[in-house]
């Protein structure tokens, strides 16, 4: 045997003599050991820890003092936040935020009409909760509410005026007509054979008539309720027209984000499918659109929308000032969304396509029923990331003169009523809190979804 021992040490790889016994470690568990292991394990590590602690110690107490201890919480004008008027060091001027809060939310929207914005906010919140909270039932109705009913009602409520009311009247007539149609169809299966395929009908016919076409009926009923309520509102309180030039603040920020989301998702799906298509012209056009839009900054797209869109349409249809950036943002977000969804489509194994084809499904049904649901589910985190980017990018409309939330903050900073040395720091902190809460909330949601989806994949 040629074991490496002390006896054959000239040929061994091991030490020739035993080491000195080391003192027992002071502790291997507990806070002191943790601090030693994690903070002061070596010279570089110790230095890093000290530098970091120095940064924390020099910045955090000052921030706390500025934003909380020395802050001014109430007052009606700049005198409340001036150090020589108050007679003590003054920190953040929260009184200014409280005073201007309405302006930050509504912009210059007429005070008497702000309840309309509130209704839209409530509907928006309702739609968000409906879609994002797992336990809420009727998800498909929720989708319909968020992606169809909400945009229509927001348009009618926010803009108002004769056009919107006429549009509302039309919508009610169409919904009632659809309702009547579904009623007739559900009691007359023979008629329904024209409406939907015989295969689906076979399932439906086993049900009693009042339960047939349950889902479309639910959608129609919901729209009827929403439109009816709005018609009552318009009748009792009236919906005078509020020009988009008066809109501002969080309303506009949320509006741009919502429009971007509502339009970019379907458009992105179409573009992604186009890019994966085997038809060369469709593929080429999709690729050109996606690469072109992704290759230029959003600002240039906004400039293009702002200056060139009016040139491209006849003078009499010149788009509204707020509509132009909306178009720009939606197209821009769609290109990014398309790439995210393409990633999801590429992740679907070929077998899924082949399985769908072997069932005899056409391209449309294959995508709608088999591929897209899986692909979209995979890329939910990516979609949410795009939304976060989109939400942050809404601030850029400031540059083309739209009064979004950030612009309203900037506008109040130059207003002499509240111009103090600390107003700016307060305003930016408030804006930062708003954007951080929205974006961080979205990213937390995406992480939770990711975890939930991963639960099924765990081995």
């Amino acid at each position, binding site marked *: 045997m040629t074991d490496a021992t002390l006896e054959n040490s000239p040929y061994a790889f091991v030490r020739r003599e035993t080491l000195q016994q080391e003192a027992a470690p002071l502790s291997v568990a507990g806070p002191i050991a943790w601090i030693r292991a994690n903070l002061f394990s070596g010279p570089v590590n110790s230095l890093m820890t000290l530098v970091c602690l120095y940064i924390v110690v020099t910045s955090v107490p000052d921030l706390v003092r500025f934003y909380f201890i020395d802050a001014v919480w109430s007052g009606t004008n700049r005198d409340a936040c001036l150090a020589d008027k108050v007679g003590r060091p003054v920190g953040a001027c929260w009184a200014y935020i409280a005073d201007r809060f309405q302006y930050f939310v509504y912009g210059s929207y007429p005070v008497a009409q702000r309840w309309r914005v509130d209704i839209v906010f409530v509907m928006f919140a309702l739609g968000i909760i409906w879609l994002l909270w797992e336990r809420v039932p009727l998800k498909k109705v929720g989708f319909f509410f968020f992606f169809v009913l909400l945009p229509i009602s927001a348009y009618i409520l926010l803009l108002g005026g004769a056009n919107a009311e006429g549009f509302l009247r039309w919508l009610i007539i169409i919904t009632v007509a659809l309702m009547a149609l579904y009623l007739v169809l559900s009691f007359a299966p023979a008629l329904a054979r024209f409406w939907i395929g015989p295969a689906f009908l076979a399932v439906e016919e086993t049900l009693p008539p009042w339960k047939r076409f349950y889902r479309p009926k639910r959608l129609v009923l919901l729209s009827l309720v929403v439109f009816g309520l709005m018609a009552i509102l318009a009748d009792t309180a009236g919906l005078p027209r509020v020009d988009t030039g008066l809109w501002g603040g969080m309303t506009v920020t949320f509006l741009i984000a919502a429009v971007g989301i509502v339009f970019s998702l379907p458009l992105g799906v179409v573009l992604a499918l186009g890019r994966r298509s085997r038809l060369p012209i469709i593929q080429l056009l999709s690729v050109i659109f996606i690469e072109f839009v992704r290759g230029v900054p959003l600002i240039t797209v906004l400039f293009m929308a702002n200056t060139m869109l009016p040139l491209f349409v006849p*003078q009499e249809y010149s788009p509204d000032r707020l509509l132009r950036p909306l178009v720009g943002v939606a197209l821009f977000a769609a290109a990014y969304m398309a790439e995210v969804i393409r990633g999801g489509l590429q992740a679907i194994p070929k077998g899924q396509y082949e399985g769908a084809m072997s069932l005899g499904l056409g391209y449309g049904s294959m995508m709608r029923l088999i591929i897209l649901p899986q692909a979209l589910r995979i890329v939910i985190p990516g979609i949410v990331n795009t939304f976060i980017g989109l939400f942050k990018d809404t601030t850029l409309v400031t540059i083309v003169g739209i009064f979004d939330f*950030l612009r309203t903050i900037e506008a109040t900073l130059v207003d002499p009523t509240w111009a103090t*040395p600390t107003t700016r720091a307060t305003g930016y902190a408030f804006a930062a809190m708003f954007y951080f809460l929205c974006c961080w909330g979205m990213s937390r949601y995406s992480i939770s979804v990711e975890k939930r989806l991963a639960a099924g994949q765990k081995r």
Partner: protein
Amino acid sequence: MSSIPTETVQPGRASLLYDPKIRGYVYQLALLAVVAFLIWSAASNAIENLRAQKIASGFGFWHNAAGFDVNQKLIPFSASGSTYGQAFYVGLLNTLLVASIGIVLSTFLGFFVGVARLSPNWVLSKLAMIYVEVIRNLPLLLQLFFWYNAVLKPLPDARNSIALPGNIFLNNRGLIMPNPQFGPAFQAVVIAFFLAAAAAVVFYIWSKKQQERTGKQYPNGLITLALIIGLPLIVYFFAGQPLSFDLPQQGRFNLTGGLQIYPEFVALLIGLTTYTAGFIAEVVRAGILAVSRGQTEAANALGLRAGPTLKLVVIPQAMRVIIPPLTSNYLNLTKNSSLAVAIGYPDLVQVFTGTVLNQTGQAVEVVAITMAVYLTISLVTSLFMNIYNKRMALVER
């Protein structure tokens, strides 16, 4: 057997309506027709509208006198004698300047923060996490406003400049530093620098070959550093120190002389760098986490210490994961530099799509040129990064 059916089964001739090939052609033709119609109507409307507004079309404005001045310019430009075409180049160079410096700085900061987030040091990793979370969840425009309006604007005016060591002054007009003046003999120093760089490359190749043959390692980094710094320094002293500085003079009301770095540039650079670094940090972290733990353990088992493990084993493998998203972050930084228009840094968008567009009214041409520039930058950058990516990619059989 006599009962073989004589009639063979005809292949089902479905109606042309259901032939996927025909359908494909029809769809594509329809799409083409729609796109062509859209382009045609947009173009004809644009011509009509431009005629109604009496705006000239074409690129004739390129040689017209500009009549405005730009504060930061890398090439000569003046309100009196320069044209819109020169304004375009001024803006383009400013964009490239801020983007290239921003890319370098944000790469360093991003790598540092990304590695720091994975550090076993609890305080360091938590600070890095807070940095990343805060930076990534706030709009860049807000951050630019913050740096420009809340940090750089409240600095004292020129009379009360903050004097930093080395004749550097900080005030609300920016950072004023000694302006280096190069004598004619300075060329020799430049040549020496390039010679040193070439020598360093040669030495690197030689040492690599030596290491492959004999296993002996040379201190590459130190020797390269010594060559690149030492040789030009020696030449500099032999050439009689051909470098002098134009020092800023603190007058009674103003600072004169020196090199002025404008606050708009500083704000944009800080904003872009810190913002992009937050994203790069996450890319780096994801890349390092993607390298399996076994690789580190194997390196440790071979007796490599933490430093060489990171440098020789982990980072090269992580780079494969890092490079593609890193590329898109570089592109984002370049595109985001267009936000300069919000704080008045004279980049391409501010000078060209802002001022020139306002003065000439030629929206179509100006916006098209701007977009073409950014598209070109994007395509060229991704081309180079793809080549690099291909070189670094895992070669699989």
